[in-house]
């Protein structure tokens, strides 16, 4: 797929920035997202390649503006929706609940 993820050789994106003493996770939710890979990989039974392809399908502008683990979250949602574990409506309802201060 010839998409925005295939950035090699593109100009104008600025230097690759290296962070001194970079932590494994910048936010606690990133650690939880990392752990979700193992559990969803095993019970949803997707392949690493399907996971990568899901990330390629993120809308191009959003892909560039979102972070590494946001890409992962998108791939989890895709894999789980595809297999009927969760629906878009359920995810949207949960997001709305959290935005409104819910737990």
């Amino acid at each position, binding site marked *: 797929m*010839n998409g925005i993820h295939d950035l*090699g050789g593109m100009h104008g994106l600025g230097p690759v920035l290296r962070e001194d003493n970079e932590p494994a996770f910048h936010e606690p939710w990133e650690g939880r997202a990392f752990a979700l*890979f193992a559990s969803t990989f*095993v019970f949803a039974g997707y392949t690493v*390649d399907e996971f990568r*392809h899901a990330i*390629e399908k993120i809308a191009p502008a959003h892909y560039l503006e979102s972070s590494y683990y946001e890409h992962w979250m998108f791939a989890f949602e895709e894999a789980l929706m595809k297999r009927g574990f969760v629906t878009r409506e359920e995810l949207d309802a949960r997001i709305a609940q959290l935005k409104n201060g819910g737990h």
Partner: protein
Amino acid sequence: MLLTPEIVPGLLATGASARVAADVAPRFQVGDLIRVRNHNPATHTRLPGYLRGKLGTVERDYGVFAFPDTHAHGLGEKPQHCYSVRFTARELWGATAPERDTLRVDVFDDYADPV
């Protein structure tokens, strides 16, 4: 299948490796010159677009892996060799690229033709 504690260390150590224990003959040997195919599917591929049509030299054979282009779509593992292939910066980016710079990229058998 549910995730159990015994599964986790292996999964983390290999990064959910797609290595396949299949006896498949390699199409290329270390030292071979290859040309990358003009392979541009609308579906998943691990071939970076900037390699299409480029010449490179096989530097290492990693062994046999599931082919990402089919594996991503439930079309089977199509196990095949994956190589580290060396490309010169000038081959990739043209005459103004630094003369001595090279880049190594993982290339599957199905991405390349012999020269």
